[in-house]
């Protein structure tokens, strides 16, 4: 006879692993913003902006990838108050955390773990078109911040 308790335990174990993966991914973005904040003092924040629905529909939400945009905003800018953000990449994440993917400028990096995600984000920031966009976000503060 099938051991259903074993099956449930296996499911719970996988669920816990998914939670850990998702937390780990959050820590990568937290560390990114910590480093940016040290240098740019809040003038450059990078976030994932999730869309409300999945590709197929809400009923399948748990088994489909989570789709989001990676956006930059200037936390010191007056424009920020009206949620002005600049799209710099597209983001997809498996419900189990990994793989997750980041796509920009004709490249899509599908990351299987934390280290590869960190490298993909490093490649994103090192891209000259993305860097130029980020510079505009940082400089937006010069003209738009409320004194």
């Amino acid at each position, binding site marked *: 006879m099938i051991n259903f308790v074993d099956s449930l335990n296996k499911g719970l174990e996988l669920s816990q692993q998914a939670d850990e993966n998702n937390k780990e991914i959050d820590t990568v973005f937290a560390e990114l913003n910590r480093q940016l904040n040290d240098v740019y003092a809040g003038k450059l924040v990078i976030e994932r902006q999730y869309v409300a629905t999945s*590709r197929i529909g809400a009923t399948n939400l748990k088994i489909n990838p989570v789709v989001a945009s990676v956006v930059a905003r200037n936390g010191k800018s007056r424009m920020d108050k009206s949620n002005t953000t600049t799209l710099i990449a597209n983001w997809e994440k498996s419900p189990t955390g990994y793989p997750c993917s980041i796509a920009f400028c*004709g490249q*899509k990096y599908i990351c299987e773990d934390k280290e590869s995600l960190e490298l993909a984000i490093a490649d994103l920031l090192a891209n000259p078109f993305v860097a130029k966009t980020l510079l505009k976000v940082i400089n937006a503060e010069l003209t738009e911040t409320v004194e």
Partner: protein
Amino acid sequence: MKLTLVWWNTSFAPLSKTAASESHLNTVCRVLEWFVEQLQADFIALAEINDDYFNYLEQYTNINGFRWLNLSGKNERITFDTCVLVREDKLQILDTQNLIVSKATNSVKIGQKLIMAVADYDLPVHIFLSHWTNVRDCYEADRQHLGIRLRDEVDTILQSDHSAPVILLGDYNAEPFADSLTTGLSSTRDMTRVRKKPLLLYNPFWRHLGEAKSYKHGVDATTKNRCGTYYYKSGSITRWHTFDQMLFSSCFIGGNAWHLNEELTGIIDTPELFNLVIDAKQKFDHLPIISVLEKETSHD
């Protein structure tokens, strides 16, 4: 309307320390002209290209009405080595994306996605070009993972529209029966299964695994036989492998207005190309492959 697709690994070996010879480049130019003039190719994808080879081919190939698109290049961690030529009055490439899978510090290319517009057809056609790394650098277990990840990309299209036109083509460095292509990419030889389960991909290159000619008593089949697309003279069990393949979504197998013409799909095996591939003095080791798609005429 008819669309003819050709894939060819040119064997230029752009990562090699030795550059491709003038003669090799010139031969590829003449073969490209032949693809266009004799086969009426509309879409030609080439592998083992770099910027220099692309520029040479574009300059010295005498064909008109084609747009050349260099998809080769090195990003931070990966080298892509393909280019495409599309007949401008029929096809337009709308977007391209390089697909890379990374684990820790290792990155592997799984393909390049092209979104293509076809004249007099409303839906975008998604094409995935792949030149997977060879067996020495990537064992089948890892290669299966490449198949699964490429399949994820195909799923993003087919899950929302089972009848979407999707074509995969390339040099997979794996046979049609390899796990990477069957369970990994969900491709099959069984077209009835594809009709019933439209998320499966149909792989017509299962037909091209074996000897091109049957054995016959009294006919010497041992000298110039061909049973695949890739020739490796020192292969201990077989010298031939069917590494170059095209895979089609179910819409081309009776699910839409476009139909795969299997009679015209297969390995391009002229005596000249065959001799280039088996000649040890030449660098060529792949034969080109072809497929033809035909659209039903509207009677509105």
